[in-house]
């Protein structure tokens, strides 16, 4: 089990991610009760059904899945989880930037998958606000130090919309 960090503290995770197992398809998979993070394919196939029986809806985006395809649906989601299958796969940083900056997504943006201490700072800057840190990693130290290796940055980003050169006195 990953360990959830939210608002700079350990948080209890109420969400479950729906996995499509062998023999199941987005069309025929059973939709469980509760707070569920749905894979994009399930959302796309069963949108009306999900909306009718779930008040709180989560969405999972894989690295290759395009934000543009769900841009019109963003108001439905309480949480969007962006998957990092390997921490060196940096596509999720662009996905997050687009969701926050272009599509103005306001809900929870969660990093899941191979989430490690040394990427938390970048993740925070592109707009993540919750992090499912890899199991076995030092949660306390990640919270204490992982978000603050640097006190400032040059570029504009989600967390700091003005680049440093526009903030000079």
């Amino acid at each position, binding site marked *: 089990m990953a360990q959830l960090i939210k608002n700079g503290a350990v948080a209890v995770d109420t969400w479950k991610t729906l996995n499509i197992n062998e023999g199941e398809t987005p069309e025929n998979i059973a939709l469980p009760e509760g707070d569920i993070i749905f894979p994009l394919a399930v959302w796309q196939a069963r949108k009306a059904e999900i909306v009718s029986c779930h008040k709180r809806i989560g969405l999972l985006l894989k690295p290759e899945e395009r934000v543009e395809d769900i841009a019109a649906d963003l108001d439905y989601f309480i949480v969007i989880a962006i998957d990092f299958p390997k*921490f060196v796969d940096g596509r999720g*940083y662009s996905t997050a930037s687009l969701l926050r900056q272009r599509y103005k997504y306001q809900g929870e943006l969660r990093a899941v998958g191979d989430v490690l201490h040394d990427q938390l700072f970048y993740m925070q800057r592109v707009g993540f606000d919750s992090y499912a840190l890899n199991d076995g990693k030092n949660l306390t130290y990640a919270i204490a130090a992982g978000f603050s290796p640097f006190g400032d940055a040059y570029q504009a980003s989600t967390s700091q919309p003005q*680049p440093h050169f526009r903030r000079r006195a």
Partner: protein
Amino acid sequence: MYKYDAIDRQLVNERVEQFRDQVSRWQSGEMTNDEFRPLRLQNGLYVQRHAPMFRIAVPYGMLSSAQMRKLAFIAQKYDRGYGHFTTRHNLQLNWPKIEDVPDMLAHLSEVEMHAIQTSGNCIRNVTTDPFAGVAADEIIDPRPLAEILRQWSTFHPEFAFLPRKFKIAISGTEEDRAVTWFHDIGLHLKVVEGQIGFTVIVGGGLGRTPIRGQIVREFLPWQDILSYCEAILRVYNRFGRRDNAYKARIKILVQALGAEEFTRLVEAEWVHGKGGPATLTQAEYDRVAAHFTAPAYETLGAGEPPAERAFARWVERNTHAHKVPGYTAVTLSLKKHGIAPGDITSEQMDLVADLADQYSFGELRVSHEQNIILADVKQSDLYEVWQKAKAAGLATPNIGLLTGIICCPGGDFCDLANAKSIPIANAIQARFDDLDYLFDIGEIDLNISGCMNACGHHHVGHIGVLGVDKNNDEFYQVTLGGRQGNEAKLGKVIGPSFAADEMPDVVEKIIKVYLESRHDDERFLDTFDRIGIDPFKNRVYEGRAHGKAKAAQKEAV
């Protein structure tokens, strides 16, 4: 040159502490090797054949004398008293200990230097023309924008884990000296109707799949440089291949989509960033540009240089036109025969720093040809500079000549290499050690890479040499006719590869064909363009057994 202010200093200092913490977590086992690897690479630290290799950034090639002395100190204290300048303005040390690297970074930060993003799948050190600011043919000084790009690319949160490495070059002269056609992004500064901007070239590269870049925008106003680069990087980060490291560079994406479709994606992305907060302000440009104002030049007449032949030769090869009368730019050759091209000892670094202080306003440049440049020397001081450089082994008059070889560290040091490159360079230098002969042969670029990653830029050498592995033996493939500059193109493969001990003969035969065929005042490249590759091919393979005959010969041995 650029001086750090509060934020620059803060980020570099914080980087030192971040890396110290990462090394300690790796040593304690809290971080796995796989987790540590990309982090150490983004601090220039490779694990190599004999020891780790540590690569220090020299942003756009500019160094102060104090920085050079610090490099000398670091090479002396933590390594074996020498370093190697690369084709991308960086300094590599081949024998440091991983546990010393945080302290080395701390020393570097004292002189406003670092190793940030000198390796790894991120935006690398921005490179430019070593004669920036002094070149007679300069349209605009590229250094302020190179520094602005350095800052923008440093710890960019969206682009730290790209599909593959990403290199940007920027050139501000008529004649491109920054190899902009062969970078992931090449920027050509120009003035159109009084407005300063760039031609934007994307998708060039050497390496395994050498491709000349393509123009995605004929003119981009300078204010838009950051937002436009972000658009390019975002398209690449999202859609570049990640399934195969050999097909992951942006050049492959541009080829796969076609330049037109790639450009359409970039322009569609840029619509959103254009005019946004990343748009550069005049105030920021002026702030950075103020660091690159001209030094206090004196009004000088033309000097009368001594007539000494050896000195005249050095002046002919190792000095370059300067835009201020009475001044000249001097190249200190790191291509002394028998030394690994680009290598420099700590003593030489100290001496070079002294020369800079005494004769060139305390500043130095590193060129992508792996030499050091004193950009602002009075012509009346040239003789003294020459004597001192000569005494230190830094005055070989071979810049642009056959033995001024561009060469990667090769199989002697590098884990990626298929073959050694330094011994080939040295063997060719030994064969052409006669200066009269060397001068008679004239201008010729010889580039050697120990593998297809092409750190020696062999594709753009007039003569290119590539180390290849054939059944665990080292062989060398030769290309002819490559070139950098505005008409940059890739060399053509001459034929089957050669064994190491054949290489001096092969080069000599190529040179002989040129000397026999040249018209008056034709350089090697001119003759090559006129007569084509066949005469060279015929001579080089004359009498050589091919195919079955060669196999039979091998059997007999």
